[in-house]
């Protein structure tokens, strides 16, 4: 009896693989409609991501900021927040790091320390701004996030074409390149920085412990599930919202600084590389489970790296990578919960108790949540 139950639980836990595979089959199956051989496409993806050592290292290099951002988003998701503004937080982190890189003279160790720290502060503050707009202005974090994203992008463009333009003239491609000592030490002939990997590991452990083992993590969990009850239990919704967003923003800022100091050598227009939105997808696909996040992030990173090679070989637009990841997340969102699909039915499930309403109403204003002290 017991082993059957564990098997059942195991199957339920592993079920999401089915929609993921389904999504792969679906997307690749559509390719012939565009005159592309799906197997060629798959080969291109593999090659692009894992073809040779430099490529594999670059895969890691792309993966690191993505995983850091995703881990940070777990904190805001736990608190029930939709931190769409994470893109802007990455960008502000990159801008802050660029500021140090372009304006401060110091030995490399100090320089890098300053860059990373200021980046985390900048990302954290940018996120806190969103949070305050929510708690004091009742503006939903989706909207403040979008607006602040746009402003961050605009700010970047302004810096690139204006005050930080390269000596040969503004080009809209990027700012002046950073001094050598400002960049993160790279491994071999790639864009991968061992230091960034260490930081990612630290971030992972930090968030893992925070969410599972700290009082603050529990407060966030309560806040995310029922803000008013959480308030009555002693959780200050304003304080924890701001802190959760700042935490995530700091990690996002860190990711941004890693991007600008290792992947690139200057501040670029597309500095975030869409990593912010991608991280949101990663967390959703990983069904908000922290242990799965690094693997899903790696997978997504591989898909995106592969799509550039795919473009070179087949002329298919690079957005195919985004389509693939999007379809996967959609399938898992829709079909990833076996219970809701009517599989693994339990005698306890199913009421027949008449109509019921579930879920908390979406209140764009959160009017009835009192602010804490």
């Amino acid at each position: 009896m017991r082993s059957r139950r564990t098997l059942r639980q195991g199957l339920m836990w592993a079920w999401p693989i089915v929609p993921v595979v389904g999504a792969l089959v679906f997307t690749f199956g559509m390719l012939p409609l565009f005159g592309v051989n799906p197997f060629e496409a798959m080969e291109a993806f593999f090659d692009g991501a894992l073809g040779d050592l430099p490529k594999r290292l670059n895969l890691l290099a792309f993966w690191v900021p993505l995983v850091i951002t995703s881990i940070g988003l777990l904190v805001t998701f736990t608190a029930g927040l939709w931190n769409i503004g994470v893109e802007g937080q990455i960008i502000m982190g990159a801008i802050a790091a660029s500021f140090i890189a372009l304006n401060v003279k110091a030995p490399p160790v100090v320089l890098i320390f300053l860059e990373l720290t200021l980046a985390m502060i900048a990302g954290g503050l940018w996120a806190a701004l969103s949070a305050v707009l929510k708690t004091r202005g009742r503006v939903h974090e989706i909207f403040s996030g979008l607006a602040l994203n746009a402003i961050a992008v605009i700010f970047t463009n302004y810096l690139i074409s204006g005050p930080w333009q390269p000596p040969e003239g503004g080009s809209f491609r990027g700012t002046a390149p950073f001094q050598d000592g400002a960049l993160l030490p790279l491994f071999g002939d790639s864009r991968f920085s061992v230091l960034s990997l260490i930081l990612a590991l630290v971030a992972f452990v930090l968030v893992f412990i925070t969410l599972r083992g700290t009082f603050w993590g529990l407060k966030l969990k309560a806040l995310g599930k029922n803000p008013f009850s959480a308030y009555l239990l002693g959780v200050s919704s304003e304080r924890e919202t701001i802190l959760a967003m700042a935490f995530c923003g700091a990690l996002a800022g860190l990711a941004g600084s890693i991007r600008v100091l290792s992947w690139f050598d200057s501040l670029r227009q597309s500095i975030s590389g869409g990593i912010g939105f991608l991280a949101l997808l990663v967390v959703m696909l990983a069904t908000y489970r922290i242990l799965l996040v690094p693997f899903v992030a790696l997978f997504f990173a591989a898909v995106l790296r592969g799509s550039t090679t795919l473009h070179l070989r087949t002329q298919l637009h690079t957005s195919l990578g985004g389509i693939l990841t999007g379809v996967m997340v959609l399938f898992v969102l829709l079909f990833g919960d076996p219970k809701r699909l009517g599989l693994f039915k339990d005698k306890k499930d199913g009421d027949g108790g008449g109509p019921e309403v579930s879920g908390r109403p979406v209140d764009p204003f959160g009017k009835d949540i009192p602010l804490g002290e």
Partner: protein
Amino acid sequence: MNDTELVRILSSIVLASAPLIIAVCGETLTERSGIVNLSLDGTMLMGAMLGFIVAFESGVVWYGFLAGAAIGSLFALIIAFGSIQLRQSQFAIGFVLTLLGDDLSSFLGQNYTRTPGPTVPHTGIPLLKDIPIVGPILFDHDIVVYFAFALVAVSWWFLNKTQPGLHLRGAGERPEAAFARGVGVNRVRYLYTIIGGALVGIAGAAYSLNVKIGWSDGHTRGLGWIALAIVIFGGWSPVRGAFGALLFGATKALATVLQRTFPEVSVVIFNAIPWVLMLFVLLAVGSDFTERFISMLPKSIQPPLRSLLRVSPPMALGTTFEQD
């Protein structure tokens, strides 16, 4: 700037705001029934792309609008199904569809960028368009604009003066009570989510066929999000939402005018204006400022003003209803 120039600007604002008005009406219907369709930005991009391509390939502009409606309905159906049947998060599904819509439209539309294509023919209303000032602003446009006007009026009448409108509102305010009155709550939610989505898709097509003709990567990006904000700003009412859309259109026109007057100021500042405005309008309706402002006015006009500016979401917005 003289009178005719002002009239011309106002007229162009009306023309440019029409797609947004259509989208806002559509989403208002959806949200009033209790569902949030967060995929608007992706839907509009797909609507714009498909609308243009279908119109281009077929040569008939109206097929483009049909295509827009179709893709909008599909996206909405996914959200409705995922929420009602599978009880998953409306926000999550909507957000993924937004990103998918962006990527899909880039992918499928890549061969059609910078291609000239068909547009909606201009049909000024005879007689009415000759009325001084008001005429050119309101009646000298095309069917899309008139459709937008009609949509606002019909939506308002439907919501407030008809039995099916009561059903819609009931499903969004208190589904258990509506169910007890014989309203098929989930059927209603499916219906109006799909209708709303179709309208948003039409709005996307209206953009690429009537306002910014043609297709380019990320053609309508951002408009869907602004539509969502306007629904809130408009207090979930089609008429106020239409005003909100016109306000945004006016801001864009203002930005263009300012840009011309102050060419030395970087264009980036003006790009930021719609977003900053969005923050401001949401701040205005969300925070206590409006309430405090109203309480300072004479007592007699407070109640009507309050109900005019009332902004409260449908009570069951975002919840799931299981009909057993």
